[in-house]
Every structure is written in structure tokens, then in C-alpha cells.
């Protein structure tokens, strides 16, 4: 933790109308590591995650205080273009949501939006992204087919490939494996080990074992507050707070 953190969150609070979803939160996210956010449902994990690429902007009635610094720059600052921010901070959603387009076009979408026209480079980048998402071997002969013809696990890896194609610096994953079978889940977890050599990853998960397997750091949320954050090994074996211990050992949640 000696290096400068990639993302610094300072005194962040998020409200939906009169309900407070995230309370006065401070957190550092280290570069090229996996941070897992755990906690019971409705504890503000996903809301916090969505604050990191300003997806909460889309929710009417959401207000926010405090700041989120990406490489030292406030992402809610006036000079920040939200479109630019979302290119740097990509997102994979809980429910896989490929576009009703071909497999190729799904991955190429972000690149085309970013203005890439060169056919050869487009093809190369799509192929590379599918390799990164460990999907290439399964789809290389059917790139023109609809993305919706893929299985659930393949669709989610396609969404990961789509997010990786524009080479974000940070990848946010909101329970990416919650709707998948164990085999697909294992593939995605394996993938995360590969990905952290290039990307900073923040993953929300309900699955304690998954957090233990994939993450370097773990943050425990409860009722909108950050209760405890630390290295995953430490937090799971030797939690500093009673409530964390109760949660990771399965006494509630």
C-alpha cells in the first residue's frame, strides 16, 4: 500500500430522496488490485460502486456529498466530462446485458463510440478483448451471431470483454457472477486473477468465499457505513470488529 491509491474516496455520502444509502465513507482503492465489497443486501455496496463512474447521475432524486478522486482528480468536478470518466472507469452489471447485436458488434461498440474506424484495428482489438475475457475460443467461429444466442456465463464474459475493449483503468463489477452456475462463476473468478495485472478492479459480491478467493482487499459495509477494510486474508481470519466477524462467519447476512 505504499503506492498512491488509484481511487480516493473522502467523506462520501449518497442519499436517495430522504433515505441515506451511503454514510460518510472514506476508502482508498489501490492500483492493480482487486477490492471486494461485501455486506448484507441494501447496505449501500452497489450504490457506492455506481458512484465511482457516476452511474448514480441517472437516478432521479439521488444526491451526493463528499468527493471521489481518480488519480487525485475529483470525478464530480466541473472540468470532468462524464463520458470520458466512464471510458476510464468501466462497469460490468449484475445481470448480463449484451446488446441485441452480433457478438463482434457488442465488443466493438465502445470502440466505435470512441471513434475507432479502422477495420483492421477494430478486429484486432475485439479479438484481444475476447481473449482477455477468456471467451475467444468459444466464439471465434460465430462472431457474426447474435450475442443473445450465448449461454448466461458466456454473455457475462462478453459483457466483460465489452468493458475491457475500451481499456479502462478501473473495472467495476456489480455481483458479476450472482446469476451464473458454479462453472461459469469459476471461469469469471479465474479471469479476475488475470485481469488484475492490468486493471484496478472493484467487485461487489454476496458470496464470501468468492470475496476470499478473488480479492486482495476486502471492505465490509453495513447499513450504509464502511465498518472495516483491510487485506482479505486479514479481514477474514482476524477481523477487527465484532460485526465483521459475525458476518464473515455467517452469523447474519
Amino acid at each position, binding site marked *: 500500500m505504499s503506492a498512491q491509491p488509484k481511487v480516493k474516496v473522502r467523506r462520501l455520502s449518497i442519499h436517495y430522496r430522504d433515505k441515506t444509502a451511503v454514510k460518510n465513507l472514506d476508502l482508498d482503492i489501490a492500483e492493480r488490485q482487486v477490492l471486494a465489497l461485501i455486506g448484507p443486501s441494501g447496505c449501500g455496496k452497489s450504490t457506492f460502486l455506481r458512484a465511482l463512474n457516476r452511474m448514480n447521475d441517472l437516478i432521479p432524486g439521488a444526491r451526493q456529498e463528499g468527493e471521489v478522486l481518480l488519480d487525485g482528480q475529483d470525478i464530480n468536478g466541473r472540468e470532468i466530462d462524464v*463520458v470520458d470518466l466512464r*471510458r476510464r472507469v468501466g462497469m460490468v452489471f449484475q445481470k448480463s446485458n449484451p446488446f441485441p447485436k452480433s457478438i463482434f458488434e457488442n465488443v466493438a461498440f465502445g470502440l466505435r463510440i470512441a471513434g475507432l474506424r479502422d477495420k483492421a484495428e477494430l478486429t484486432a482489438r475485439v479479438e484481444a478483448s475476447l481473449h482477455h475475457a477468456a471467451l475467444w475460443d468459444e466464439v471465434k467461429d460465430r462472431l457474426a451471431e447474435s450475442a443473445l444466442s450465448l449461454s448466461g456465463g458466456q454473455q457475462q464474459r462478453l459483457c466483460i470483454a465489452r468493458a475491457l475493449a475500451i481499456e479502462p483503468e478501473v473495472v467495476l463489477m456489480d455481483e458479476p457472477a450472482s446469476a451464473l452456475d458454479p462453472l461459469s462463476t469459476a471461469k469469471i473468478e479465474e479471469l479476475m486473477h488475470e485481469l488484475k495485472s492490468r486493471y484496478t478492479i472493484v467487485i461487489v459480491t454476496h458470496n464470501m468465499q468468492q470475496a476470499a478467493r478473488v480479492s486482495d482487499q476486502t471492505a465490509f459495509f453495513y447499513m450504509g457505513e464502511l465498518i472495516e477494510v483491510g487485506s482479505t486474508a486479514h479481514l477474514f481470519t482476524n477481523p477487527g470488529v465484532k460485526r465483521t466477524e459475525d458476518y464473515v462467519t455467517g452469523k447474519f447476512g
Partner: protein
Amino acid sequence: MIALTIQAVGLSGIAAVLLIVIFVGREALPILRGDGEAGFDTLFLPQPLRPGKPPGFMWQPVGEVPKLSMIPLLLGTLKVTLVAMVVAVPVALAAALFTSEFAPRRLRELLKPVIELLASIPSVVLGFFALMTLAGWAQSTFGLPSRLSALVAGLAMAIAIVPVVFTVAEDALTAVPRSYREASLALGATPWETAWRVVLPAAAPGVFAACVLGFGRAIGETMIVLMASGNAAIVSLSLSDSTRTMSATIAAEMGEVVFGGTHWSVLFFIGLQLFALTLALNWVAGAFVRRTLRRLGGTA
């Protein structure tokens, strides 16, 4: 008992449509059989008009030698419909996109019913508006030789079609899952790029259905064209010429036709053609939508 009643009501609807076709078809039978004074050749092929002139297409059903060519009427219908579609579809789709993607919720709740209210304007009122206001405006703006023309009728008809296309298209756009929009925005697309490149293509079948519905309405629309087109059955591709459509012909002449005569049969035959046109269009549209859905759904 209730199920039976519902079934009976449903079947009676189908029966009504079938009976209408049978009735119209029966009146047009002499044309279809070709044993009357007029057959497909008189209706669709060039006919001698006057001695010493080349044969041509003419609609002049009353006279010593009735001239019953469908060509001017078909051409007129297509011309007016084309103008209406070219004007109405972009306007309606733009309005639908704006309402579903960009308008704040309040504005949206206001816009949708107001535009849909347009659909409830009686077409005779639109026709009157076209006749009194639009015609003069179009003539002075575009420098047209006559007040009433295919252009004026098409423009007035566009007003009638916009709400139809808008409503169906807006529903289709709104039905696109939020997750597509979120995925697109999270990839750094602007709201405009999201609307244009994700939402609109995802709603394509519904949007296409909206256009077909508008087309069907346009082809059968009668009162507006009757009042605003000028009703001259001329073979001309110019939009500024007075124009007679198939539907307006039926409406204008049915009251004065000799019962059971050739002209009578031809008018019913025109009705049959309108029916066939709409049916064919719906069928093609349905096939297209199914194909698109299969391609998008990936169940192929």
C-alpha cells in the same frame, strides 16, 4: 360459459372481416372473372383514348366509352402516401425518441397524451384545415400552379399519421430494457449515441410496425385526400399536380354510380385492391419483424 362467450365474440370479429371481404369480392366479381365490360386489361393496360392518339391511361368512368384505368388512381394514392410518410415518419420518430429518451418525466407525461390527442382530430377537420389554410400556404411558399395537389394532401395526411406512428414507436422505445441504456452509458456513450445506436436498433421491430401502421392508415385515409388533393385523375409524377386517390374515388363516386353496373364493380374492385395492399403490407412487415426478432433473439 364465459370462455364460450369470449370465444364467440372473438370468432364473430373474424367472421365480420371475412364477410366484408366476401361481400366486396362478390360485387367485384365481374372484374375478377373478366366476363363484364371491364377486365384486368382495361384496368391496367393502356387503352385507346381518342382516334388518332396513342393509347394511354385514363380514369373517366362516365361517358359514351367509359375509361377505367387504375393507373392514375394507383399513382395518385402512392404519391400522396409517399409525401405523407416522408414527412410524418421522421417527425414522429424524432418526437418518439425525444419523448422516451431525453424529455424529463414531467414533460414526457405531458407530451405523450397531447400528441396522442392529435389522433382524435376528425379527418374531416384536418381536410378542412388543409383546404382553407395549408393549400394557400403551400401555393405561395412553393410557388405551385394550383392550390390543391398531392403535396397539400400529403402534408395534411402527415398530420393524421404522426400520432399513430408516434404512439406505437414511443411504446416500443420505452419497452427497451434499462439495462441496455446503462450498459451503453457505462461504455462512455453519450445519451444521444445511446438513443441512436442502442435503443433505436433494439426497438427496430416495434418502430417498423409503427411505420407500417402509419402506412396502412395513409393508404386508406379518405376524407383528407378527398378535400385536399383536387381529385383530378392525371397520370403525373409531379407532386404539385392535382391528384385523385383510390379511396377518394370510391367515396366520391359511390353515391352516383349505377347499381350493379361496370363502374359499380370497378369501385368495389378498387376497395378490394386497397384491402389487398394493406394485407400484403402487413404480411411483409410481419415477416420482416419475425426475421429481425430471430436475428436479434439468436434462437435461429
